[in-house]
């Protein structure tokens, strides 16, 4: 009887995917179709590939992404294993810390890396790979972590008693159990590296371009919107395909939800050194940035900070920091309010249907997969007629922010939603609790980790103004990343130190938000 009811419930929640579908349609699919049909010149579908700059961009995108992904996954897997199974000082903070770079504006991070790296390495593939690791390691930690965290200690013990050495346990138990999560993390990491824009712009040498950069040049500088759109669509299809192939879920996999205490085993020396090195990797650039914000040539000075905080007025620099914070904050909150329920609802719709999971993964990644330039332009020409003239709507930017955060909200919600044992739902229903009540009293508390991680991601991504919205016209007052960019566009000591101060504050604020929300939740 209960089983039958459960089956009915599974079928009837499919509609929960509708808000997510609407969001992606409105922000990406429809605009792209409109753009494609209005600007693409059929000849360009083939001729755009004949440009040597396009081919070079494609080749470069591919190999730097593969290299970056390989290193990120390698280091990420090692870090994730220890983070998900050992208790050590600062563990939860470390997990949150590792997520922060992911959502930082590249303007700020670029400044930090340049401050820290020796001159010779400023334009090198090493710098690019390092920066990619910095940004994307959290993908591995957050995708594979929950999976490994849920492995019962005793399962490992049983492997030991069956004669498996640590290496064999790793190979035959731990990796197979993490395989899907690792595939999934690899796909997402590859995608982030492939579509990397800011990092390549700042740390790549002149002439180095990824496909996204090439799309930008075609669209903006050369006025070749047709070619740019063709490239953007091709890239989008490639990414979606990668996701479809790599995000398979196996039906035999059970993710057991355990609010289990992490093993009290202590870390041995080698992992400790590894984490120290990793922690340094994340904090040293920030310290370099702090130093740079207070240093002018040979003297130390707090002028940059004073101007930033409004304590000191500077002729030629005039911005309202508090208003910028308000604007950024407003966008971030609204974006999160849209992204969270939409994402969690969609996860519910999928949680028991493995086959649709990879298809939806590929679908929600679209707003991220399409070049920001193209999305910006597409939205511009799509929503420009009454009564659908949304171009001037204040809601547009948070909406696009939400669309971009959506895959991350879903990704963090999935293991949690799936881990809620069905017996809990059955038990609640036998207590005559209707589905809403059941949800609010039983499931919502269990969803807290998903909600907080999702919230942290959407807030931080919005604050850093990720991707697509960089190309939308902003009508409210300036946001913080824009203020930083225009400060760096002026010559002189003070704009520079003020810009660095602003970058540091943005980074630290974002970090604090992510860390606080995250720590409260767990793992």
């Amino acid at each position: 009887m209960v089983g039958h009811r459960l089956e009915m419930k599974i079928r009837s929640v499919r509609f929960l995917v509708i808000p997510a579908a609407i969001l992606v349609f409105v922000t990406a699919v429809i605009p792209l179709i409109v753009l494609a049909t209005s600007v693409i010149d059929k000849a360009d579908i083939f001729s755009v590939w004949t440009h040597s700059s396009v081919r070079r961009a494609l080749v470069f995108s591919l190999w730097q992404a593969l290299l970056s992904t390989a290193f990120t996954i390698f280091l990420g897997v090692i870090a994730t294993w220890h983070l998900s199974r050992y208790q050590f000082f600062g563990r939860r903070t470390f997990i949150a810390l590792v997520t922060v770079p992911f959502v930082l504006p590249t303007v700020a991070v670029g400044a930090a890396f340049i401050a820290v790296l020796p001159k010779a390495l400023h334009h090198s593939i090493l710098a690019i790979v390092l920066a990619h690791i910095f940004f994307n390691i959290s993908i591995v930690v957050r995708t594979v972590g929950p999976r490994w965290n849920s492995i019962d200690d005793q399962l490992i013990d049983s492997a030991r008693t069956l004669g498996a050495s640590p290496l064999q346990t790793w190979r035959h138990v731990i990796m197979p159990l993490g395989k899907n999560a690792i595939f999934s993390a690899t796909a997402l990491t590859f995608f982030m590296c492939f579509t990397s824009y800011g990092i390549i712009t700042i740390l790549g040498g002149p002439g180095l371009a990824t496909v996204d950069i090439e799309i930008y040049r075609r669209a903006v500088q050369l006025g070749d919107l047709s070619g740019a759109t063709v490239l953007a669509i091709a890239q989008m299809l490639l990414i979606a395909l990668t996701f479809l192939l790599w995000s398979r879920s196996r039906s035999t996999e059970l993710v057991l939800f355990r609010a289990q205490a992490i093993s009290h085993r202590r870390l041995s020396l080698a992992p400790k050194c590894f984490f120290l090195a990793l922690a340094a990797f994340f904090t040293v650039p920030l310290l370099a940035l702090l130093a740079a914000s207070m240093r002018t040539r040979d003297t130390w000075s707090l002028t940059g900070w004073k101007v930033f905080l409004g304590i000191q007025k500077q002729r030629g620099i005039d911005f309202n920091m508090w208003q910028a914070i308000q604007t950024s904050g407003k966008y971030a909150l609204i974006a999160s309010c849209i992204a969270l329920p939409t994402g969690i609802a969609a996860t519910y719709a999928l949680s028991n249907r493995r086959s649709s999971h990879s298809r939806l993964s590929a679908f929600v990644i679209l707003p991220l997969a399409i070049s920001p330039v193209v999305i910006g332009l597409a939205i511009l020409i799509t929503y420009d007629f009454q009564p659908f003239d949304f171009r001037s709507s204040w809601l547009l930017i948070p909406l696009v922010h939400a669309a971009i955060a959506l895959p991350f909200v879903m990704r963090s919600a999935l293991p949690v939603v799936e881990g809620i044992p069905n017996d809990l739902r059955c038990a609640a229903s036998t207590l005559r609790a209707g589905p809403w009540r059941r949800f609010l009293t039983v499931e919502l508390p269990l969803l807290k980790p998903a909600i907080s991680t999702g919230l942290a991601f959407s807030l931080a991504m919005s604050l850093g103004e990720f991707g697509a919205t960089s190309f939308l016209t902003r009508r409210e007052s300036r946001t913080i990343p824009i203020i930083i960019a225009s400060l760096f566009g002026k010559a002189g000591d003070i704009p520079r130190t003020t810009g660095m101060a602003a970058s540091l504050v943005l980074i630290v604020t974002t970090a604090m938000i992510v860390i606080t929300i995250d720590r409260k939740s767990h793992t």
Partner: protein
Amino acid sequence: MSLIIDNISFSYGDRAILNKLSLEVPTGTTTAVVAPSGVGKSTLLRIIAGLLTPSSGSIILDGKNLSLVPTHLRSIGMVFQDNQLFPHLNVYDNVMFGLRMAKTEKKIASERCRDLLELVGLSQIAKQSVDTLSGGESKRVALARALAPSPILLLLDEPLTGLDSELHDRLAHELQRILHATSTTALLVTHSIHEAEIISDSIHHLQ
């Protein structure tokens, strides 16, 4: 191949869980340690298996002191209370696991695997996935899996706890039969004297 537990003590923080425990399990026999819950029975098994280090005392198996020997080299099998079957492997592969780790030759391994599955009465469901098994079936797979690599010693943690009473007695007798048929040296912990009496040859009470 006897097991000697020599003056094992273990404390968690300042709470003493085991205090100078000594015990001997003669070769080929089954000994039960009976004690109420929470007294340290599982801890004892974990120490013997090498998953925990005792504060003092030693484990001697077949004349060899196991103090510095890591778990995977001790040749001590264990059946866990909640079975701990590998979710990503089917029944057959679960049982094969220990044999694969020992790099046993394929033909010999598969023969042993089949023999054990037959011994526990599960030959028909060899290819089934482990999340569809009943309580009793899971326990039997766990047992077959632990026995497959022919361990010198087999540890059983509350093997019948949690199974419904009908299954209980039946499985208890089966367990006794299987252990006897394979001449396994075994140590089991339980809170039920009744269970201990059916399965084991000697009983030791723990304070």
